């Protein structure tokens, strides 16, 4: 992967074990540091640390991974390996709104495919992609455990039940219109 070669060329081995300094003085890094400290900065804190970055910033990036690697005294390759192994972690910035279509068995049988196709057609998105204007990300999930209400999707964190392609479209449109013209609160963190 492109990112992997990139990291290796930018960060030579000796840097991996350097004392950890947060990538910026963004306050959210304090939350990440506190998460690791609570678990004694032990290597087993890695996944919890990645969760806390993703929760605070929305995605994982190179400076963040380097920070965690330094704090937990882990090689960056290990950190990168874990970050890419788990499907929940994303290394791409997410859109302002997210639509996660459940592809569990019950939703599959009840027409999750149709939901995905319809979003793909209207917004020209494949699962894992974000619209060029950064408004909407389309994702899939294995199962939200709301099988009794299949098919479901999670739009901006809320489960929406018994969907049809049309209802899904309307719901997405509504959430996009709601924030149209309002500037985003969270600044991109790499700054």
């Amino acid at each position, binding site marked *: 992967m492109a990112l992997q070669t990139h990291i290796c060329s930018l960060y030579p081995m000796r840097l991996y074990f350097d004392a950890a300094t947060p990538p910026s003085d963004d306050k959210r890094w304090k939350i990440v540091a506190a998460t690791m400290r609570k678990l004694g900065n032990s290597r*087993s804190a890695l996944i*919890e640390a*990645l969760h806390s970055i993703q929760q605070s910033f929305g995605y994982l990036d190179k400076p963040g991974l380097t920070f965690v690697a330094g704090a937990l005294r882990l090689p960056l390759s290990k950190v990168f390996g874990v970050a890419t192994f788990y499907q929940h972690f994303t290394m791409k910035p997410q859109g302002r709104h997210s639509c996660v279509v459940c592809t569990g*068995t019950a939703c599959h049988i009840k027409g999750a495919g149709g939901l995905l196709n319809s979003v793909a057609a209207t917004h020209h998105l494949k699962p894992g992609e974000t619209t060029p204007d950064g408004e909407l990300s389309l994702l899939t999930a294995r199962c939200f455990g709301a*099988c009794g*209400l299949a098919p479901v999707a999670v739009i901006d964190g809320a*489960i929406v039940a018994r969907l049809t392609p049309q209802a899904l479209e309307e719901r997405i449109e509504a959430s996009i219109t709601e924030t149209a013209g309002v500037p985003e609160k969270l600044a991109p963190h790499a700054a």
Partner: protein
Amino acid sequence: MLPEEIKTMAADERRKSAEGLVTLSVCGAAGCQALESDTLRTELASAALAQGRGPDRCRVRRVGCLGLCGAGPVVSVEPGGQLYQRVQVSDASDIISALDVGQLERIRLDPEIPFFRRQHRIVLENSGRIDPDRLEDYIAEDGYLALATALSEMTPASVIAEITKSGLRGRGGAGYPTGLKWSTVAKAAGSPKVVICNADEGDPGAFMDRSVLESDPHRVLEGMALAAYAAGATEGYIYLRAEYPMAIARLKTALRLAERNELLGNNICGSQFSFRISLRLGAGAFVCGEETALMASIEGKRGQPRPRPPYPAESGVFGRPTLINNVETFANIAPIIRRGGEWFAGIGTGRSKGTKVFALAGDIQNAGLIEVPMGISLREIVFEIGGGIPDGKRFKAVQTGGPSGGCVPEEFLDTPVDYETLTRLGSIMGSGGMVVMDETSSMVDVARYFMEFCMTESCGKCIPCRAGTAQLYQLLGRFTDHQAAPADLLLLEELCDLVRNTSLCGLGQSAPNPLLSTLRYFRHEYEAAFLTAGGK
């Protein structure tokens, strides 16, 4: 809390609810919450107030799952035991005014329908009856009584003896005898020992563990503490999926309350026994439901399985002796200790004791969560409890065990549900997902769906699983595209055999199950796929 304090709190709580108080319980599990049950709850509370029923006369509270998710949001009224289904926010004031005159027929849900009547609730006994965020509610239902009794009156060996007597087997799917597992860990050398609760419910179509954790989290904590006492462990982990935010929140609250009241932590219930539980979140890897992969993930590594032996009981997480059980297994422990192993062994069949929770979903009238005694037939589950297939369609198959299980066709619907029978039918008990499919579902498509699942979820460590599932997926693609040749069918079978027998862990070993079971019962659908291409 000391045992006496627990008893006092329980008595206080029970007295309060007996004082002529009307209680409206609104389902607050993830399913009903998606249907705005939170707004409904506030609306009910203000409607009650508006009609002159203060909190001393009418209490509106949030409870865990009431079971019938397909009819959500569900509201129950006590005393009286009435149920309302598909309740809209606009129904709130009508429900309150109907309290004195009987019930609101328009949205009434009959509590006597087979869906409720045919169930036997042990794991779910408090589900939908208590507020999961209130410790007092759990204690009023005899919660933590088993732990307090065990710590003051039983030795660890007698706890294990009771569990062994009950015949309880692991509810995660494989069905390993729980008593045996516990005694192995108890005998293992080395300390500190660890207890892990596997709450990485990855099977798509299964939501039993989510529901138990959202509805009655203390029950799982009590089960874990009893296991720790029995095995001599001092540390515990709950490994929970990140996809279940509500379960995470409720579990955190429960942990905090239990620690504050000395039901977890140091000197539990005034005894010498100490046990701490930490929460670890998964990150979306199905393979982490496999015990060795799960332990690698707790250690902060990639969730890749390793060969066994050594078994977790000898060398588990961080190299320590580890007892690992599923959520539902732990949820069975407290009732067994409270009521005795013999009572539990009296439920179920010869080798499968007790009850099993199933998540009923798919093409079925009553989608939801059910708990039934082992040995019940699939037909009773699908047609009586589940209410049959909607829209007048015909039943085709029921899928149990998720990506590791198989499809059972109509002719075997009368066989009893237990570990051995389901395995004989080419499926597995699994963790309890049950997806019903009607005549419009293509079995080849279902097999391909699960194969795609296994392919993307394969961790990549062993070749049979990594490459085998990918090849099987592509081969199945030829069938769904009607491009298959008869030789492809033989190749499929040969490859299934290879993947099943040479993969490292359960994921690969069971990945061919959905394919093989559909091939066994619906071979004609596969043959139809190459006949159309070959007939030209």
